[in-house]
C-alpha cells in the first residue's frame, strides 16, 4: 500500500493540477483510514485550499462548552469535509455558555449557527453536587436539582426564542466513583440518582421543544470505558477531560448528530450475501454448509441480520448485491431456517456476476433514490475499494472477524435519525413491496485502473506433493467457476501429475489486500496436435478480476511450448456453473461441437495467443522433477 507521504505527494500534486475531485476523494480516504489529529490538520488545510471549487454543503456549528474543546475542532471539520460538508465552527468562551444563550446579541447568535452543541459537564454545571455531595443534606441536594433544572429550562426556552438552530445538549456524566463510595447506592437520594434525575429533566426539555436533542454522554463514556476516557492530567492542567485516544469517539458522536441535521444520511443499505449475510458460499457449500443460525459460528451472521432488521424497522431500505447464482441465493433467503432476513425484507435484489458498482447504480435507479443515499456492506475489501473508487456510496468497512460485523454496522453513522415517524417505520416495507426490476445499462469508469490498483500477483506452478490435498479439494467442491466439474481424489491428481501426457497446474493469487492462497486448478491432457483442457476451475474468492485469463494464457503458452497446435476444452453445463458458459468464447475459442452434455471449444495456437492482462504480474514455478 502507498505510504502516507507518497499519498500526500499525490494529493498535493492533484491540488496543484486543479484535480479537485481526485484530491477530495483521496483526502476522504486518508481520513477514513487514519482519523488522527495530524491527519485532521492536514486534511482541513487541503480542503480549505479548494473549498470554493468543490460544491460542498456549508454548515455552521456553534460549540458552547464548559471544558476545552479546541483540539476536537479540526477532527470534526476533517470528518465533515470527508462527508462533503464544509463545517464552520465557532467555539464559545470558556464556561460562558449561559451568557451566550441569554444575551440576544452574543457571538453565538451573530454567528447564525445551523446547530449548536451544548457541551457541559456536571462538575461545572453543579460543582456542589459533584465535589461536595457528602456535605449536602438531602434537602440541599433537592434544591440543587430543582435550581439546575430551572436554569436548563430557562436556557433552552431562551435559545428557542433567539435561534432556530438545532440544539444538541450533552447529558450529564456519572462520576468515576461516587463521593460516598459504595454507600452511595444504598442511600435514598444518591449522587448518581441526582444526576440521573437531571438527565431525565434534560430529556423532557428535548421532548418539549422542537429541534432539541440529547447526546447521551454518559453512555458514550461507558461504551469506551470511564477510566480510559478520562485523563486526569489533562483535566487538571488544561481543562480537557478526555484522553487523546478518545477524542475521536467524541468527534464521531457529534457527527452522528450532524449527519441527520445536514441531511448526509443513507436511505438504503445494500448488502452482499456470501460471507456477509451468512458464513460460507451458498453456491459451493450448499444449504447445509453455510453458517447462519443461533449457534456459533452462524450466530455472528445472525447478529448482523438482527442489526439489519433494526435498520429496516427504522425505515432503512434493504437491498442485495451479490455475485451468485440467483436460484442458490433465493433458496437460502427463502428456506434456510437460520435466516432472520427473508426476500420480503429486500426492496431490490441484484444477484448476478456483474460488476457491483454497476449493480449499485441500478439499485439506486430502481429505488429512485440518489446513489449517495446508498450504503454498501461487503466482506471483500476488494469489492469495497472498487465501489469506493467508483461511486459516492457510503462504504461500511467490516473487520476480518465476522464476530465484529454487527458492531461495525451499528457503529456506522450513516443511518442515524433524530426523529422517527410512522412513515419511516413503514418505508422499508413499502419499498420492498414496490420491488420492480428495471433493466438498465450504463458505462462504468475505468476498470483497468482499478485492476492496476489491486497490484495482483499470481503464481502458476505444476502441482507438487504438498499441494495435492488442496488441489483435490478444489476439484471436489468448486461448483461455480468450473468448466467441467470433474471431481478427483488426491490419488488421481498425483497419478495425472506424474504422467507425461498430463499436466496439473495450480494457481496462487495475492493482491494488496492479502494472500488468497491456492485458488485455481487447471488440468491439461496432451495428445499429438491437441491439448485438451480436462479441468479448469477457480475459487469464487478471485472471480471477476481477470486472474482466470492469466491462468488460461499460461496453459496455452505451455501447450504451444509442447508443440500442440490446438487447445481444446469442454464446457459441461451444470445447475451451478452458468458463470463460465461464455468463458472460452470470450477468450477467442471457436465452437466446434455441441452435444447434449455440453459444448466443445477450440483455439488455434499458431494463429494467436491469449494475453496475460498487463495489470497482473505472473510468476511461473517450473515443474519439479519427480
Amino acid at each position: 500500500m502507498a505510504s502516507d507521504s507518497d499519498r500526500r505527494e499525490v494529493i498535493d500534486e492533484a491540488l496543484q493540477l486543479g484535480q479537485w475531485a481526485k484530491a477530495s476523494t483521496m483526502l476522504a480516504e486518508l481520513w477514513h483510514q487514519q482519523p488522527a489529529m495530524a491527519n485532521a490538520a492536514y486534511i482541513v488545510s487541503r480542503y480549505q485550499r479548494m473549498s470554493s471549487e468543490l460544491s460542498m454543503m456549508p454548515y455552521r456549528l456553534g460549540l458552547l462548552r464548559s471544558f476545552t474543546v479546541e483540539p476536537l475542532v479540526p477532527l470534526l471539520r476533517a470528518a465533515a469535509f470527508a462527508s462533503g460538508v464544509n463545517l464552520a465552527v465557532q467555539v464559545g468562551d470558556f464556561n460562558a455558555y449561559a451568557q451566550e444563550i441569554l444575551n440576544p446579541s452574543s457571538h453565538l447568535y451573530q454567528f447564525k449557527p445551523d446547530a449548536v452543541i451544548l457541551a457541559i459537564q456536571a462538575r461545572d454545571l453543579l460543582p456542589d453536587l459533584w465535589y461536595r455531595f457528602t456535605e449536602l443534606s438531602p434537602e440541599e441536594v433537592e434544591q440543587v436539582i430543582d435550581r439546575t433544572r430551572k436554569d436548563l429550562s430557562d436556557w433552552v426556552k431562551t435559545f428557542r426564542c433567539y435561534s432556530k438552530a438545532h440544539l444538541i445538549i450533552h447529558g450529564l456524566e456519572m462520576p468515576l466513583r461516587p463521593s460516598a463510595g459504595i454507600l452511595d447506592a444504598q442511600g435514598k437520594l444518591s449522587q448518581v440518582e441526582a444526576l440521573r434525575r437531571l438527565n431525565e429533566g434534560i430529556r423532557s426539555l428535548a421532548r418539549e421543544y422542537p429541534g432539541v436533542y440529547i447526546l447521551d454522554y454518559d453512555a458514550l463514556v461507558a461504551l469506551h470505558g470511564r477510566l480510559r476516557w478520562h485523563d486526569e492530567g489533562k483535566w487538571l492542567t488544561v481543562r480537557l477531560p478526555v484522553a487523546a485516544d478518545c477524542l475521536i469517539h467524541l468527534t464521531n458522536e457529534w457527527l452522528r448528530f450532524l449527519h441527520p441535521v445536514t441531511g448526509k444520511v443513507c436511505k438504503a443499505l445494500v448488502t452482499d450475501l456470501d460471507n456477509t449475510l451468512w458464513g460460507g458460499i451458498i453456491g459451493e457449500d450448499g444449504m447445509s454448509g453455510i453458517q447462519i443460525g443461533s449457534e456459533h459460528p452462524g450466530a455472528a451472521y445472525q447478529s448482523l441480520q438482527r442489526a439489519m432488521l433494526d435498520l429496516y424497522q427504522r425505515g432503512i431500505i434493504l437491498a442485495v448485491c451479490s455475485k451468485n447464482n440467483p436460484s442458490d441465493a433465493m433458496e437460502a433467503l427463502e428456506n434456510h431456517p437460520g435466516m432472520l432476513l427473508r426476500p420480503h425484507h429486500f426492496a431490490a435484489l441484484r444477484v448476478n456476476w456483474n460488476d457491483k458498482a454497476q449493480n449499485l447504480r441500478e439499485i439506486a435507479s430502481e429505488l429512485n433514490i440518489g446513489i449517495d443515499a446508498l450504503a454498501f456492506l461487503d466482506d471483500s475489501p476488494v469489492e469495497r475499494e472498487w465501489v469506493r473508487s467508483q461511486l459516492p456510496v457510503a462504504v461500511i468497512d467490516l473487520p476480518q472477524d465476522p464476530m465484529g460485523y454487527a458492531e461495525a454496522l451499528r457503529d456506522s453513522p450513516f443511518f442515524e435519525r433524530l426523529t422517527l415517524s410512522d412513515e419511516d417505520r413503514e418505508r422499508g416495507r413499502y419499498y420492498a413491496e414496490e420491488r420492480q426490476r428495471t433493466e438498465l445499462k450504463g458505462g462504468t469508469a475505468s476498470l483497468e485502473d482499478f485492476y492496476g490498483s489491486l497490484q495482483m500477483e499470481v503464481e502458476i506452478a505444476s502441482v507438487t506433493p504438498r499441494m495435492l490435498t488442496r488441489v483435490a479439494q478444489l476439484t471436489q467442491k468448486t461448483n461455480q467457476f468450473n468448466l467441467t466439474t470433474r471431481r478427483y481424489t488426491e490419488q488421481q491428481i498425483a497419478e495425472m501429475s506424474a504422467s507425461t501426457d498430463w499436466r496439473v497446474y495450480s494457481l496462487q493469487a495475492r493482491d494488496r489486500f492479502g494472500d488468497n492462497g491456492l485458488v485455481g486448478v487447471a488440468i491439461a491432457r496432451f495428445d499429438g496436435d491437441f491439448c485438451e483442457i480436462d479441468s479448469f476451475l477457480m475459487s469464487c474468492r478471485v472471480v471477476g478480476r481477470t486472474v482466470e485469463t492469466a491462468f488460461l494464457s499460461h496453459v496455452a503458452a505451455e501447450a504451444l511450448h509442447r508443440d500442440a497446435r490446438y487447445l481444446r476444452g469442454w464446457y459441461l453445463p451444470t445447475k451451478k456453473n452458468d458463470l463460465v458458459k461464455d468463458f472460452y468464447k470470450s477468450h477467442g475459442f471457436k465452437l466446434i461441437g455441441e452435444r447434449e452434455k455440453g459444448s466443445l471449444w477450440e483455439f488455434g495456437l499458431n494463429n494467436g495467443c491469449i494475453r496475460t492482462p498487463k495489470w497482473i504480474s505472473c510468476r511461473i514455478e517450473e515443474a519439479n522433477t519427480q
Partner: protein
Amino acid sequence: MTELVLVSVRRIAADLFDIPLEQVLPHSSTATIENWDSLHHLNLVLGLEGAFDVQFSPEEIAKMQTVESIALLVQNKLSGGK
C-alpha cells in the same frame, strides 16, 4: 529507530502547525516556529499521544520545547515502556 521517531514527530508537527516538513527541523522550537502557540502545543501533545500510544505528564509537556527533545522523549517512552 530514533531517526524514524524523529521523522514521525517532524511530520506530525508539520501537519499540526500547517507548515512544510522542511521547516520543521530537529532544532526548531517554540521560538522559531511562529504557529507554535499554546493551543497548537496542546494539539501537538494530543497528536503525539495518539500516534505513539503514549502519555505525557504535565512536567514533560512543559519541557517539550524543541522538536529534537520531543523526539527523544517519545523515544524514551517507547523503549522504556509507558
